[in-house]
């Protein structure tokens, strides 16, 4: 009789022990690119939480998984709820740092930040650069060349067929079908749409008359949810074209872009070169590295269709221990090893050497 009473309890304890053992917090997905060396620090411990951009999501997971094994007590959590949610959470104090596709707006900077020491503000540090690709799915066409005004025409609905004279003029000799173009864009608000529309507004003002923003402004073609939704829709539809983060464009052909007088293929170095060539946003603190991307950059092999994602942190935290952890994390993330591992896992462009040095120097000032 005693056994039948103890046995269920014992089974419950055993099952509970097995389940809890499986919930070890340092069990992240294994990545092949574990950085050797990198930012070596004496063993840090503690937990910091970040919320924000889903564009950075894969990169953040890679960085968290690659934290040097010298810091087994350091736990970093990143929740990709979206840039806006990230900034809101950081301002309210729910997150220790935010990931955001856009730097803090002036109104947000002027407000108070729950976690920052009185009198100090938050800073934006660029840590993730992603080229945006114009991907298409047209049978028989593998080397499409486009320029900004043609892209603007296609995505605003002014150019409707593949063999339109404007497209043919740029692609002499290509076998363009006479089929209608199926445009695919994002149905949800996104930083990719923001950067794409800013590029078109800067380079094709006469064709692209709508203001740039996170919502795609024209009612043309199909709308799909998320990078993966857009990729699926383009893969499954014939004669379709879309703009998409390069990391999601696997399986689709990517068009060449006219930059200056030459046609350029998409490249990580081109994207990083444009970012390195861009000035910082004026009127911000000395350590705030918000970048005003130079969309009309025409240097050789530049890829101006680019998205820059930031980590937003306090210049000085009320909790000094947290400040030290965030500072070390950002220095690690901006370092060469972490950037290379993000490039191989998430398809991003590594920060250029000078920008990386600037970010590390600014991160060192975080207390």
């Amino acid at each position, binding site marked *: 009789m005693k056994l039948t009473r103890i046995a269920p309890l014992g089974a419950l304890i055993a099952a509970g022990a097995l389940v809890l053992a499986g919930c070890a917090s340092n069990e992240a997905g294994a990545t092949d690119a574990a950085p050797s060396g990198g930012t070596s620090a004496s063993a840090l411990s503690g937990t910091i939480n970040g919320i924000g951009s889903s564009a950075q999501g894969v990169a953040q997971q890679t960085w968290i998984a690659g934290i040097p094994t010298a810091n087994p007590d350091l736990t970093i959590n990143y929740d990709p709820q979206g840039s806006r949610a990230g900034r809101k959470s950081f301002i309210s104090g729910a997150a220790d740092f935010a990931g955001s596709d856009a730097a803090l707006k002036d109104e947000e900077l002027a407000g108070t930040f729950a976690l920052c020491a009185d009198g100090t503000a938050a800073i934006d540090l660029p840590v993730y650069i992603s080229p945006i690709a114009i991907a298409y799915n047209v049978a028989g066409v593998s080397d499409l060349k486009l320029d900004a005004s043609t892209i603007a025409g296609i995505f605003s609905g002014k150019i409707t067929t593949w063999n339109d004279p404007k497209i043919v003029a740029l692609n002499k000799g290509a076998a363009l079908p006479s089929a209608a173009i199926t445009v695919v864009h994002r*149905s*949800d608000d996104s930083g990719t749409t923001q950067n794409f529309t800013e590029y078109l507004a800067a380079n094709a003002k006469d064709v692209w008359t709508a203001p740039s923003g996170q919502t795609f402004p024209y009612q043309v*073609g199909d709308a799909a*949810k998320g990078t993966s*939704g857009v990729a699926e*829709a383009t893969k*499954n539809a014939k004669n379709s074209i879309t703009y998409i983060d390069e990391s999601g464009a696997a399986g689709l052909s990517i068009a060449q872009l006219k930059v200056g007088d030459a046609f350029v293929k998409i490249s990580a170095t081109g994207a990083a070169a444009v970012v390195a060539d861009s000035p910082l946003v004026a009127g911000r603190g000395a350590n705030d590295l918000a970048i005003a991307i130079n969309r009309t950059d025409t240097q050789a092999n530049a890829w101006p269709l680019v998205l820059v994602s930031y980590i937003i942190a306090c210049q000085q935290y009320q909790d000094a221990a947290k400040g030290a952890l965030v500072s070390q994390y950002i220095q690690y993330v901006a370092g060469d090893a972490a950037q290379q591992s993000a490039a191989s896992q998430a398809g991003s462009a590594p920060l250029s050497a000078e920008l990386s040095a600037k970010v590390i120097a600014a991160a060192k000032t975080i207390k």
Partner: protein
Amino acid sequence: MTTKVTVRVGDRVFSTTTVVAGVVILATLAAVAIFLVIQSIPALLAPKGGLPNGATNFWQYVGPLVFGTVWAAFLALLFATPLSVGIALFISHYAPRRVSQTLGYIIDLLAAVPSVVFGLWGIVVLAPFVQPLYQWLGDNLGWIPLFAGPVSGTGRTILTAAIVLAVMVIPIMTAICREVFLQAPRLHEEAALALGATRWEMIRMAVLPFARSGIISAIMLGLGRALGETFAVAMVLSPAFIVKFAVLQAQNPNTIAANIALQFPEATGLSVNALVASGLVLFAVTLLVNVLARWIISRRAAFSGANG
């Protein structure tokens, strides 16, 4: 004497527990409603130009969404109702016992599939599959306004979303209809058969009249699910901010729930209030549908398969 005291205490505890449970549910519902109303007020009183999608006032913003919600749910029920009634009839009156049990089990399994999986199935399998059908419909029957072109290149239209919704709603409706059909009075059925009715005539005379309000309650339950379905529609539909009846085109009216799912992560300030206000409108529409269902069923309470 002592036993009487024990029963009374237990009685009181039990009745208090049930009262508390009822009150908690009502309080939760009230709290949700109050939250919705408070958060919506800034959007309802919004100045011109504050609302997303360029709407000048709140009703202009939420109008296309309400239309999309009701239209998608209506199309879904159009597909689901005959199918569910047919499957339920087959299970209850035509199939041999073993087949009907297996079929019932499989239908219940369909109800357990998460809606995200249906969304994925919709994008990856259904949309490319139906796109050539839409092309054919648009080319040959395009003169009917319903099928007017230009046909979407990806097949991700409101018709596809309605098909996915129908697949999600069928298990619920079939389960209820099956229960109701099984409760049809045996004597009536046998009397009809004894008088020389065929199987179909017997069903028409003895089963369907009895089951009418049960079928309606199944429809209302399915409608409630279809009105509120979020993720499957958000993934499958290609939305735009319009009101139109054409079902084959690339720009489709969006549903309220899918719109909230898409816009909320990046919404700011007044947009958040507008989304919550649209949620309040959906709450009101669903409440209306349920009240209507209850009223229809209560008119035939004696025959309904549902309790009371």
